[in-house]
C-alpha cells in the first residue's frame, strides 16, 4: 500500500472536517477523493501532504510513518487548484526549482527539465513567464514541476477546478494518459463525479468528514453503499418508494400489466440521442425517465400519453427513506405482494 491513513480526525474549531477516516491507497494507482464541497476531501489531501496537521491519527507513506514529517521531507508532489506558479520565474525555472534546491548538477537539471517539458508538451514555452501561459498550460507546468523531483506520491487538489469546461475535459483525459505513462501513485480531489468516474482506477467517496464508500467506478455506480453515494454518482429518480436510475424505469402504454404505477407524460425533452421524460404519477409525484429516441418511438409514447411505470428487473434501487440498497431481481408483482 502506498498511503495508509489511519484514524485521522481534524477539527476547525467546532466544525469536524474529518471524523476517524481510514483509507489505504494502493501503489501505482490513480485514486480519486470524491465528494461535495466542504466534505473534507481537500483537508485529507493536505494532511497527507503535510500542509495541515491532523488532530488524531497517522499517515504512512510507503510503509514509513510520515505523521510528524514536514511537507519538505515527505517527497510528495502537490498540484494546487490555482496552479501556485512562481510568478517571477520562467517555466523552465519553475520546473527546475525542486531539483535546484536539492543541489543537483546543472546538466542533470537541464536534461530533466527538458524531459518533463516534453512530457507535458510545453517544450516551446520553456523560456516564457507563467503569466504568458493559459490556465491549462500553467497547470501542466505545475504538474511537470511536481513530477521533477520524482515524488513517491502525486497529489492534486481539484486540479481542473479553475479551468473552463472544454479545457477541463481535455486535461482530464490527458491526466489519465500521463498516469498510464508515468505510473506514480496519484491521488486527486474532485467534486465532479463524471471526472472521477472517467479518470480514476478507484474512488473514495467522502461526505461530511466520513468515508461513504471505496471502490472502482463500476462498483460505485452499480453497487452504491447507500443513497448518498447513489445520488452523488449519477442522476436518480424516485418510484414506488425507491430511488432508481432514470434509465431503469420501464414505461408501457396503459392499460399495462398489474403492479405498474399509472402516470401521465407531462414533458418530453430531447437531449442528443436520448429523451428525458417527466412523467407525473396519478398520485402527483414527478418521475424522470430516460430512454433512447428510437425506444420512445417504438413505444408510441408522447406528451400527454397515459402510461404505466415499473422499475426494471435487475435495477439497483435504494429505499427512499434511506437504508440498505437492494437489487431487484423479482418481478414487480411478486415484490409488491
Amino acid at each position, binding site marked *: 500500500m502506498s498511503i495508509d491513513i489511519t484514524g485521522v480526525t481534524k477539527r476547525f474549531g467546532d466544525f469536524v472536517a474529518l471524523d476517524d477516516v481510514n483509507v489505504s491507497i494502493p501503489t501505482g494507482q490513480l485514486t480519486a477523493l470524491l465528494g461535495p464541497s466542504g466534505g473534507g476531501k481537500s483537508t485529507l489531501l493536505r494532511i497527507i501532504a503535510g500542509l495541515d496537521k491532523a488532530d488524531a491519527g497517522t499517515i504512512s507513506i510507503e510503509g514509513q510513518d510520515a505523521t510528524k514529517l514536514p511537507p519538505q521531507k515527505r517527497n510528495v508532489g502537490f498540484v*494546487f487548484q*490555482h496552479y*501556485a506558479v512562481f*510568478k517571477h*520565474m520562467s517555466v523552465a525555472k519553475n520546473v527546475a526549482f525542486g531539483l535546484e534546491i536539492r543541489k543537483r548538477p546543472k546538466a542533470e537539471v537541464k536534461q530533466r527539465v527538458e524531459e518533463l517539458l516534453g512530457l507535458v508538451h510545453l517544450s516551446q514555452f520553456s523560456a*516564457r513567464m507563467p503569466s504568458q501561459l493559459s490556465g491549462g498550460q500553467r497547470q501542466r507546468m505545475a504538474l511537470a514541476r*511536481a513530477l521533477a523531483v520524482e515524488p513517491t506520491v502525486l497529489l492534486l487538489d481539484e486540479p481542473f477546478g479553475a479551468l473552463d469546461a472544454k479545457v477541463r475535459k481535455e486535461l482530464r483525459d490527458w491526466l489519465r494518459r500521463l498516469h498510464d505513462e508515468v505510473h506514480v501513485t496519484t491521488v486527486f480531489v474532485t467534486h465532479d463525479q463524471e471526472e472521477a468516474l472517467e479518470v480514476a482506477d478507484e474512488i473514495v467517496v467522502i461526505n461530511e468528514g466520513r468515508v461513504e464508500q471505496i471502490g472502482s467506478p463500476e462498483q460505485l455506480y452499480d453497487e452504491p453503499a447507500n443513497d448518498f453515494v447513489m445520488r452523488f454518482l449519477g442522476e436518480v429518480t424516485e418510484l414506488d418508494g425507491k430511488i432508481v436510475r432514470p434509465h431503469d424505469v420501464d414505461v408501457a402504454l396503459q392499460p399495462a400489466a398489474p403492479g405498474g404505477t399509472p402516470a401521465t407524460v407531462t414533458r418530453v425533452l430531447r437531449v442528443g440521442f436520448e429523451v428525458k421524460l417527466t412523467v407525473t404519477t396519478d398520485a402527483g409525484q414527478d418521475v424522470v425517465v430516460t430512454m433512447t429516441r428510437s425506444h420512445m418511438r417504438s413505444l408510441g409514447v408522447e406528451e400527454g400519453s397515459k402510461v404505466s411505470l415499473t422499475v426494471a428487473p435487475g435495477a439497483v434501487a435504494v429505499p427512499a427513506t434511506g437504508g440498505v440498497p437492494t437489487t431487484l431481481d423479482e418481478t414487480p408483482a411478486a415484490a409488491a405482494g
Partner: protein
Amino acid sequence: MSTALSGATIDTARPASPQGRRPGRAKRSTPRNTLTPGAGLGLGIAMLWFSLLVLLPLSAIVATAAAGGWENYVQVLQNDQTWAALKLTVTQAVIVTLINIVMGTVIAWVLVRDKFPGKAILNVIIDVPFALPTIVAGLVLLALYGPNSPIGINWAFTPNAVLLAFAFVTLPFIVRTVQPVLEELEADVEEAAASLGANRFTIFRRIILPSLVPAIFAGAALSFARAISEFGSLVLLSGSRPFETEVVSVRVLSFIENGSYASAAALASVMLAVALFVIVVLDIVQRWVAHRG
C-alpha cells in the same frame, strides 16, 4: 495610511498573452479623449489651479536657477559649506534608506505574519512620523536623545542627530509599501515550494523576497526623497552647525533669508534633480529585477 504611501508606480502582473507577445511591448495608440464638456471644464479649472500652485512655482525655480547660468551653479556648489551640507545630507539619506530597507521589511513582516497583543497599537504608532509636524518631531527626539536624555544619550548638535531625524521621518515609507504586497501573497505558492523540498529560509529568499523587491524599491525611493527634503525636525535637533550638522534644506533657507534667490534656486534645483534621479534609477532597477525573474 498604507495606501497614502504605497507607490503608484509599483508594477503589477502583466496579463496573459497566449499568442506569446513579449512582455512590456505596449500597443502604440494615439491618446484618446473621452472628456465631456463638463469634465473638460473641470479639468481646465483644476489645471489652472495646479499650474498656479505647483507647475509655475516649480518652473520658477528652474528658470531662476538657469538664469544665473552655469557660473551660478558652479559658484553655489563650490562653496565649501554648501558642499559639506550636500555630502552630509546625501550620505545620511543613503544610510537611512539602507536601514529602512531592512527594518521596514522586518516591521512589515511582523505586522502581516505575526500575532501578538498590542499589534494594532504598533500599526498606529508607525504612522506617527507621517502625521506629526516636523518641528514637533524635533522636540520629540530631543526628549530622548538630547541634553536631558533619561538614558544619557545626547546626540543634539551632532551628525547622529541628522541620521536620527531622517530615520524618524522615513519610518513608515517602506513598511507601508511592503505591507500590502505581503498581505496579498498567496499561501499556496509557499506551500508548493515546501512540497518541493524548500526549507523556510529558501522559501523566503527565492519565493517571497522576489515578490517584495518592487515594493521595497518603491518605498526606498520615497524614503530617500523624503530624507533629503527634511527640514523641520533638524532645526531644533541639529542646531544646523555649518560643516557638521547642516543639511541642504537649511542652506537653502539661509540663501532665501539673505535674499540670494538665485543661489537658493540653484541649490533647490540640484535637490530636485537628485531626488528625480534616485526615483528614476530605482524605478529602472525595479523593472529590471521584475522582468529578470
